[in-house]
């Protein structure tokens, strides 16, 4: 357990973007006997959740959210360095390779997991946010990992996570996926072609010993819906531009800008829902956008314009069109 004084001291440091003070609070807790996983979960991750909520509720600006997130990352990096310094034995054996999907900038979940795994005695190579398939390929070649761990926080990262699944399994390396983009039941992970899904660090720890040493290449995604996803992607930047400009028809106020900023995520969510043939992904995107709008007076109209404009652009894509027309309904699969 972490006492209220430490918790408040930490939060105050996060809120005033003071990474050094936040790091001291966390390091002092570890030094005085609080288990590292507890500090990571109940202090760092908990504060980060609060940061996200404050942005969603429109109480914090994007910039403030970024500054606070940077504090969290600083703290974990520091705890990781401390851990490294006091590690008695050099960890040996094939490492785990921790990566974020390309364009996935939420590094904190991956950094937290890396630190927990290292604390449990695993060797981990952490590649950071926004990892390209080329970087992954090179790292696999260099480190010969026993598994690749792919973190995806946003559903819009699932399309890129699939590329990592292909990159890794094509050379026989198992892939474990995790992060907020995945459903707890692991359906998305399975459709993505991952070797395993881990909803938490402890689940991952349990699954690691059972991972196969080598895997077969993930089979291609060939559903009609997945084919549409691949067909949509090359034209997305044109669609994005049209959507942003349509959202901004309502002016350039903060609410409208906040909605326009969601366009890449919205499009990525549509592509992910198609790729994995999972309408729930689209439904989540829809409620996310609704929540953004509800916290920001004047945003609702911009959101409506977005949906209307998006509908116009996917008229030639029957699966996408269905997905947008039937929000949240579960289709039956034959």
């Amino acid at each position: 357990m972490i006492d209220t004084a430490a918790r408040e001291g930490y939060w105050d440091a996060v809120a005033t973007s003071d990474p050094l003070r936040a790091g001291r609070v966390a390091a002092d807790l570890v030094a005085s006997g609080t288990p590292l996983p507890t500090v990571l979960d109940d202090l760092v991750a908990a504060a980060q959740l609060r940061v996200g909520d404050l942005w969603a509720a429109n109480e914090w600006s994007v910039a403030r959210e970024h500054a606070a997130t940077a504090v969290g990352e600083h703290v974990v990096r520091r705890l990781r360095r401390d851990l490294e310094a006091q590690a008695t034995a050099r960890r040996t054996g094939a490492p785990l390779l921790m990566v974020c999907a390309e364009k996935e900038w939420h590094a904190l979940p991956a950094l937290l997991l890396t630190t927990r795994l290292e604390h449990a005695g695993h060797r981990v190579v952490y590649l950071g946010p926004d990892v390209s398939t080329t970087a992954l390929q090179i790292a696999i070649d260099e480190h010969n990992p026993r598994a690749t761990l792919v973190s995806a926080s946003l559903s819009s990262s699932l399309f890129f996570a699939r590329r990592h699944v292909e990159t890794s399994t094509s050379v026989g390396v198992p892939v474990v996926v995790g992060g907020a983009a995945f459903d707890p039941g692991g359906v998305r992970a399975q459709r993505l072609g991952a070797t395993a899904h881990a909803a938490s660090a402890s689940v991952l720890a349990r699954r690691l010993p059972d991972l196969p040493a080598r895997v077969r290449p993930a089979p291609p995604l060939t559903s009609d819906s997945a084919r549409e996803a691949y067909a949509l992607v090359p034209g997305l930047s044109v669609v994005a531009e049209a959507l942003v400009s349509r959202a901004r028809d309502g002016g350039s106020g903060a609410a409208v800008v906040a909605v326009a900023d969601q366009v890449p995520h919205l499009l990525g969510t549509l592509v992910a829902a198609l790729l994995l043939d999972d309408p729930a992904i689209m439904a989540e995107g829809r409620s996310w956008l609704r929540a953004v709008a509800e916290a920001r007076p004047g945003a609702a109209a911009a959101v409506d314009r977005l949906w209307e404009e998006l509908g116009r652009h996917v008229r030639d894509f029957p699966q996408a069109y269905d997905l947008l027309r039937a929000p949240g309904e579960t289709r039956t699969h034959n």
Partner: protein
Amino acid sequence: MSTLSDAGRGYRRDHEALLAQLGEVLGSVHRPTRALELLVDAFVDTVADFAQVALRGGQGWIAVGRTAGHQVVGVDDHAVGRRRAEAIRDLLARRTAEHWVLPPDTPERIEVLGNLFGATPLVEQLDSLDAVSLLHVPLVARGRALGILTLARRGPEDFTPEEIGALEDVAGRVGTSLDVSVVVADNRHVASVLRTALLPPPLPSAHDLDVASYNRVAQEDVTVGGDFIDLHGTDEDLTMLLGDAVGKGVAAAVAAKRIRSSVRTAALVDRSPDRVLDLTNRVLVTEVTSPIESFATAVCGRLRRLEDGAYDVTLTNAGHPPPIILRRSGRLEYVESHGPALGVFEDAEYGSSTHRLEIGDILVCYTDGITEARGRADMFGEDGIANALAGLGGAPSSAVVERLAMSVSSFMGVDSLDRDDAAILAVRPTGV
């Protein structure tokens, strides 16, 4: 399992499945040890109950074996001992497939197996299969044997002559493919040594300076580029450098390395950034035959800590996009150029300007890979930077760097192929 047509061809097991699985493996794996693991899997999954592949690589012999129902042997330690290597070499000298009938249950059997598979669990595993024979097929490429494939089946099933013919055929393809993977691996080893020499050392962490950086290379497959970042000196008196050598990839990385070294040397004599870049410029102009090879822009700074925890920053900008001082209040100040790009004019002269970096102020330097990142219609530009930095006054350096990198990434769109090297460096006095 074997099909009717397999049986018609004299096959006892599914050789089609073997070919399909080998197709997935060969060509996509360039690391020999992993290739061997996947190969023995393919054989044990389809046509055999035991498989070992031994291969002569750049660093000596390596071998990986597996028995059905067991883990791969040799995963952590693929090296092959001397006696085992001799036994393998003997076999290779014969150049054709050898079908050995194993003596049942005698000390001789154990000795044969021991010679072939060393002191590994493979001997016992193979013994427990009750195999009646071992099939050795040399792996040949470019007219020389580079390795050997050894297969066995659970007794009493044996390989048919037709199967042995088919497996020799397969071994030819496996040999060619492994040969390439060994050559590639050797080349990669050379490349990785060179790459390591070209990569900048990690930035030091000064205890009261919050430093963050970002470096993306255009040609990711070589992982080096022409953008360079460096920071060195003492906690009280530091030299920072950020710049961009012309071009991309290895050639640019070599130029970048030359500039970093030259700046480090010059800074040992005199840390004044105008003097440092002046000297570096002369080195570049005299050392290099063509200005196209040596052209570079750079910002060099001297950071001196003051009593109150603030820093005195003297900057020299040689033809580089203007560094930005993001004040704690959120105000942006730009540091314009003090002279031409490096490596072009022998008589170039550089000035400098001095700025006070208060606690919480951030100095942000970046290369034109940021400002000139291309979206669909236009470039990210200084406006893009100003937008990305809005509201970040007083934030940690890493927040500034990440926000900027992220904004550029999202500006460039989903599948932008038009990438340039890009680098960002941010430093912020913390006062403690």
